[in-house]
Structures are given as C-alpha cells and as structure tokens.
C-alpha cells in the first residue's frame, strides 16, 4: 500500500554511499587544510624564529638540567629558599582570591541583567552581554600593563585587571546558568504573585548557586596562574620574585619558586575538583 513511499534497499544504499562519500570528501578537505596550516605555519615560524628549530631542540634540556644541577649543588640551602618565597606565594594567591571574589560579585550583578528570563527588556540584555564580551576580550596583561604604567608598580593594577576579566568571563557563564535554569519554579512563584526579587531569591538562586560556586572555583585556579604572570611584569608576588631570580640567574632559587608554583597549581586543581565534585554531585 505504502510501497510508493518506502524507499527500496537500492536507493537507501545509494543515498548512504553518497553521504559517506560526501563526508569522506569533507574530512579529506579539512585534513588537507589542517596539514597546510601546520606546514605553512611552522615554515613561517622557522623563518622568523631567532634560533632554528633543530638547534633549539638540541638545547632544550640544557636549561632545566643547569637549573637542577645548581639546585642540587646548593644542598640543604635549597629548602630554605622554598620557605623564603612562601610569603610571596601567599600574596599572589591572596591577590587571585580577592580579585576572583570581587570579580564574581560584579559578574553576578552583570549576569542578572544579561539573562533573558529575568529581564524582559531586550536592550538591557544585549547591552550587558556586549559589555561582558568586551570586558572578557582584553587579555589581563594588556589592562594590567596600562594600569601599571599609569599607577606605578603595586598589586592594585593586577587586581583591577583580573577583576575586569573575571567579571566578563564569569558573567557570561553565570548568565548562561541562569538562562538554563528550570522555568517552572519561577512560573510557580509568579502564579502566587511573587515579586521580581522574590522570584530571583527563591526560584533562581537555589538552582544556580552550586554552578556559580563551581565556576568561581575554576576561575580561581585560572586567576592564580594569571596573577603569577602579572607579577612577572611588575605586579608583585611570586611572579616578580621569579622574574628577579631569572635575571640574576640563581638556578637554585628559580627551581625553588617553580617548585612552589607547580605544587600550588596542582593542589589547587585537586582541591577545586574535590569541592566541585561535592557541590554538583558528580566527579567531573
């Protein structure tokens, strides 16, 4: 009866083959494009690099080996260096923590205005989204360098730079979390005549708070790295100490600082994963 509508096996096979062929062509083209990009990019890199690739490869282990040798030679003194730079590390972490907290507060405010299900005015939503995009797009370093130039060397420019970037980056994630929140509790409260703030407080916040905290923890991790780098250009903390010992070529102290940094980053990683796992309830 429906034989007209049902495709014969031959047609299905033909379609399938055509589709497979099309896919094959697409994959082939994209692989070619990637290979072309790689080869041409590496050629440009080779041409414009100060040293050649081969020489660099042969020298790759020289520097780390030198550093480790020096650290080994300094013996017991090396452990003292680790403690010597601990206050710098704490100041860097504090810088990151404070700016993450401050940035998260700004992000929270911005994200409320960037969520379609909370604000009905399309212009406000678009405006706050665009402003978050701009805040997010500048690398922290660019903002920090300008503020460092204008305000002199201190931790404050780095804090401002990280706060700006964090507000943009977290704001986007926050607003997405709010928009993905279940609408039913909001509607339920609305049907009882709840005000805007009551709807936000009792229907939206309980749904999104775990997500918010988990995003903020991830940001904290990123910001610790960022504040180290900003220290490197003059914002204090362990980054500045690192840049100083690199200039003086104190191999043992360089290793001590790198050791501190790596330990910090790895333990922060594990700590934040543990906390996030507990908050969201899965172990990702």
């Amino acid at each position, binding site marked *: 009866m429906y034989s007209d509508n049902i495709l014969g096996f031959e047609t299905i096979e033909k379609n399938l083959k055509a589709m497979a062929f099309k896919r094959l062509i697409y994959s082939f083209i994209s692989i070619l494009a990637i290979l072309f990009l790689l080869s041409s990019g590496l050629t440009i890199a080779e041409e414009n690099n100060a040293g050649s690739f081969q020489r660099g490869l042969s020298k790759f282990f020289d520097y780390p080996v030198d550093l480790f040798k020096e650290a080994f030679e300094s013996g017991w003194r090396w452990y003292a260096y680790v403690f010597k730079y601990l206050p710098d590390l704490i100041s860097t972490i504090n810088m990151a923590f404070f700016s993450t907290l401050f940035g998260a507060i700004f992000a929270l405010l911005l994200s409320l205005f960037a969520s379609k299900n909370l604000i009905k005015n399309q212009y406000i939503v678009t405006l706050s989204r665009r402003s978050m995009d*701009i805040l997010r797009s*500048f690398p922290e370093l660019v903002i920090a360098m300008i503020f460092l130039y*204008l305000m002199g060397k201190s931790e404050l420019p780095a*804090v401002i730079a990280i706060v700006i970037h964090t507000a943009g980056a977290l704001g986007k994630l926050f607003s997405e979390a709010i928009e993905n929140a279940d609408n039913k509790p909001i509607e339920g409260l609305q049907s009882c005549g709840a005000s805007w703030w009551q709807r936000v407080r009792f229907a939206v916040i309980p749904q999104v708070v775990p997500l918010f905290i988990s995003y903020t923890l991830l940001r904290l991790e990123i910001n610790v790295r960022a504040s180290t780098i900003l220290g490197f250009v003059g914002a204090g903390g362990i980054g500045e100490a690192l840049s100083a010992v690199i200039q003086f070529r104190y191999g043992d102290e360089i290793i001590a600082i790198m050791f501190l940094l790596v330990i910090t980053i790895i333990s922060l990683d594990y700590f934040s994963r543990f906390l996030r796992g507990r908050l969201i309830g899965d172990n990702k």
Partner: protein
Amino acid sequence: MEQVLNQNVIDAVDLKHKKHIRILIITGFVFLVYLIGSILHFDLPNLAKKWNKDRASMFMLDIYAHKDHIKMNWKDPQKIDVRFEGGHRHVYKDDPTWLIRNKNNQSTIVNFDNGGQFVFFPNRVEMRNFPNINEPFIFKLNKNSKPYVDGYVGKESMLPSWMRATENKVEVRPSLYERLQVYGSKVEVHRYELGWKYFWFDFDSPLVGKGFFDAISLMFNENRVDPKISNFNLVVNEFLENEIWHHNTVLFAMVETLLMAILGTLIASMVGLPLAFLAAYNVTPLSSIRFFLRRLFDMLRGIDMLIWSLIFLRAFGPGLFTGIFAIAFTDTGTLGKLMSEAIENTDKKDKEGIQSTGANKVLQHRFGIIPQILPIFISQSLYYLESNTRAAVIIGAMGAGGIGLHFLGALMTGNDFENVAYMAILVLVAVMCIDTMSAKLRRLLIGIEDKK
C-alpha cells in the same frame, strides 16, 4: 498520631533551616571581613590618589588625538619649525594654514580652533584671545636666560591654576588641546587635534592625506600615480610601510600571535587525543601506561604556561616556536586529561554493538568511541583556541614575540600611546573574531544541541 508526626517534621525542618541560616550568616560574615580587610590591604580607597594624573591625561589625550610641535630657539628666533608629534624626520615642508609668519615685525602666530593665539616674537611670546582669559600674558627671558611671566615675577602664586612657573620652565595649559612650554633655550607649543593623523599613509608618502575610501577607489584607478608600479601595489606598499604606525610590523606580529595560538592548539589536540586514548581504562588495559600518562598530563598542566615559556625561551630564543610549544605543552596535558575522562564516560553499548559484528579493536574504537567523543573534542579544542589567543598575547609580552612584545614596547616608550591603543584595539578585534568564528564552527560541526 498524624498531628504529632507533622509537628516533628516541622520541628526538624525548622531546626535544619535555622542551622542553614546560621552557617550562611557565619560564612557571609567571614567573607565580609575578608573583603574589607583585603580592600584595605590592596589600598582600594586610595585608588584616586594613586593615579599619575599627568600621565593618565596625556595617555587618554594621545589615544584619540595627535599633536604638532612648534618649536623656536631663543638663539635663532627666525627658524621656527613645525613637526608632527615632534619627530625628527617629520618636519612639515609647507607651513600649515594655522601658522602665519609675519615678516614685517618678525612675529609668528600659531592659531587655535577656539580663537586663541600664541605669538612668537624674537624676544617674547604672547598669549592672546583665548576664550575666558581676559589678560594677555607675556613670557620672556631674564638676563640669566631663565623664563618668567611678565608682571608676575615674585608673585608666582597669583598665576592662574593652568599655568605653572618654576625656575627653569614655564608651563601653560589653557585647556587640554593647547600647551606652551618656555625654557631657557627654547619655546615649544603643542597643538592638539582630534583623530589619528597619517593612519593610512605616512608623512613622506605620495598618497599622504588620502582616506580609506580614497585609497580604495585609487586602487582600481587606471591612471598611475607612480608610473613604475600599479596603483594597487602602491597603495598596499605605502600603507604597510607607514613609518608612524608601522602597519607592516604590527600586522605581522598579530599574525604571529594568531599562528602561535592556532598551531599550539592544533598540536595539543593532535597529540592529546591519541594520548587520551592510551590513558583511558576502557581502551588501554595496561595500568602502568595509564598511570604514567596520567602523571604526564598532570605534569604538563601543572607546570604553568609561564614556566614552559621561560624554558622554551632559553632553548628556541624569542620567536614563534616558544609560544607554539608553551601552548602545545600545557594544553596537551589539559586536553589529554579531559578527553581521557570523556572516553571513559562513553556508553559501552556502542562499542559492544560494533564488537558483535566481529570488528577488530581498532574498528571498535573508531566506530564505537570516536563518534561519541568527537563533539566534546571539537568543542573543547575550539574553546582552548579562544583562550589561547589571549594567552599567546601574554606569552608574547614575556619574550616570545608577536603583538604582546610590540604592545609592551610601545607602552614603555611613554609617548606612542596612539600605537598602544591601536594594538589594544587590534587584539580586541582579533580575540572577538576568533571567539565568533569558533562559536560558528562549533555550531556547524556539532549541531545546535550544544548551546555553549
């Protein structure tokens, strides 16, 4: 019975609620104390005082305006020259329309758009006709070749706030756009105008003064400006070899930075994916390999991009390789870890279905696992591409080259702020372009179900 139960439930809920509130208040309080303490520690209340106001206003002004320097030496008052931004090689051949030389009484008048004038005489400089300034000020040199304001010797405190007289210098700034500096040896006037002058074509170019659209139409004009080369080439060459804006170097540096990000991410994802397979328990039965790879990922990720770039900087010197490898090494760790987790979370049934047809191990992974992880792989790679574009700028500034280093250089010179702004805008545009492109690509490759 029911009543009692209800009462118990209510009490329990009440208790829990109270406990909850108490915890909330305590954490809130702790955070508040921390916030206040840190605000004091980082000295946020004194934010306004920390600004170097002169620098900040110069910076802001230089970003959207350009200036011409008019200089007169007291020893040779007839030779007054006008230079663009005070550059040694940028002396105007013809006087601009706002500069009038009067041969009769040997004076030279610099006109401003608001009607004000600075008039150079061989022995003095006069200030006339500025709006809201009724008194004509006259600046002269005394016997010891020190500058002074006529009529205000010894009464410097009575000068208006926009004028500052010290022993060796008198500085006059009626508004942001006019500035006069009188020294013992010379007088210098800065005349500001809005806009980025010579952005398209520089001072000595045959196309000087042409705007963007003029240049475009000239490109396709048959009548050659320079008989030796075609107009198209001429326009492109003159644009790139702009000596004031250095389009050539800046744009190439931007390309370098983008290449760093793209190649670094590409290498990371190409190396990271196979390693991720080897690190997943449902693919690799050998736990020793898995353990080794897991620790490798942790190490690559834990040694921060900063440290990697320092190590590579020593080996490869400043250049693209440093950036590419610093990004590739860090992200191989991150992507490897993420992807191995994704592979472990794949649905077993797909693979078993393929297995039931008698396919070998490789085919099982190809058709049982890869289709499941491909969307995650693509979206994660693209996400890292976005963040690496920013990272490449940062690594560049620390020595790897690219736009980051140029940005730092322009900022450190202390007077090329328009170039700083130009590069900042370029970075902003590039980052936004990459963001939009990767979002588009993601939607194209994975479909609409992935909203992020």
